[in-house]
């Protein structure tokens, strides 16, 4: 059974591509054949975050136009055997995406034995974002604990309920879960940042996980290595938890409370 997952948010810069890279890497690392598709036509970045930008020859739009075979356009990750990337085109625009072609590509990926097809949505709620979510079975809605991001996430939840293939055939709804990123428990404690509970109350969807604000995210994108592969950091731990939960295992939520730093770590940490 294959699962199509969209990583979406409405607002830009909240961590969709970072999340796609980490979750795809985490799932693939556990042995599932996984492909991450970049739907951000014109502004491709997933290849860069995953560190395979120099090996991109063909892209998603070439496949849709029949200019390249799908198995030729797929870029295989050098570190994780079962991880593949289908990069977006850097030169075309979002009108290159049409439901027929996208649907055909997703079906072909399923027949190639991909268990998880992870669609990295562009920001906004226009065609690119709607194409990324159209064939989804599940959605990971990425939000920051901040007013504009939460509002946009709610809009996206409205679209997931109305403008997807599942909605059009009145099938089971797209299973949507919240991933709250750039979370700072210290600010929440001071009452200066929306808490997990606040955001859950507002959006009314289950929590997939909380990713703490951390410089490890910047460092990993600098290197082109998903943070999840550097298991030392709290971001890696948080994304590992998310991957386990996503695959149906129970994991207690972490990084919601401020961790007490002992005097020793304060002085030498």
């Amino acid at each position: 059974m294959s699962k199509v997952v969209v990583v979406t948010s409405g607002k830009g810069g909240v961590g969709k591509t970072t999340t796609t890279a980490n979750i795809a890497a985490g799932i693939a690392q556990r042995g599932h054949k996984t492909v991450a598709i970049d739907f951000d036509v014109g502004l491709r970045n997933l290849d860069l975050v995953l560190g395979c930008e120099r090996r991109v020859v063909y892209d998603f739009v070439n496949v849709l136009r029949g200019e390249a075979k799908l198995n030729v356009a797929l870029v295989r990750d050098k570190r994780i055997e079962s991880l593949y990337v289908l990069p977006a085109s850097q030169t075309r625009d979002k009108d290159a995406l049409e439901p027929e072609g996208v649907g055909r590509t997703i079906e072909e990926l399923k027949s190639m034995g991909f268990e998880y097809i992870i669609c990295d949505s562009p920001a906004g709620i226009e065609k690119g974002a709607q194409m990324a979510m159209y064939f989804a079975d599940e959605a990971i809605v990425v939000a920051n604990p901040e007013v504009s991001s939460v509002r946009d996430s709610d809009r996206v939840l409205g679209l997931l309920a109305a403008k997807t293939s599942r909605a059009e055939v009145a099938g089971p709804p797209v299973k949507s879960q919240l991933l709250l990123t750039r979370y700072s428990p210290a600010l929440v404690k001071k009452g200066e940042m929306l808490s997990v509970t606040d955001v859950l109350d507002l959006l009314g969807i289950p929590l997939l996980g909380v990713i703490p604000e951390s410089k490890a995210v910047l460092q990993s994108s600098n290197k082109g290595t998903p943070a999840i592969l550097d298991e030392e950091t709290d971001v890696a731990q948080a994304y590992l938890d998310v991957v386990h939960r996503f695959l149906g295992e129970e994991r207690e939520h972490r990084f919601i409370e401020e961790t007490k730093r002992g005097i020793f770590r304060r002085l030498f940490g």
Partner: protein
Amino acid sequence: MAFFDYFRRQPKSASLAKDRLSVIVARERVGTRIGPDYLSLLQQDLLAVLAKYERIDLQQVSVNLDRTGDCDVLELNVFLPNAPVTDAKPAAKSLRA
């Protein structure tokens, strides 16, 4: 004075954010999540009924759906002018009660 401001309790910005969001999110959901234009259709129907009895100003009618916890409140505000329509049926009286 900054010294006294320190003691004056100010609402925390996170709770302000939550209050503002709960209003805007509820308002925007009305259009997208509850059927296609449900409220504007209801508004038109209600107007048609009211117009039979009262001279009403289209700009003075508002229909809102507010969500407080598990409870949805449908709020209808109609401003009724003082002079009733001359050929109004008797039912118009009870409407204003």
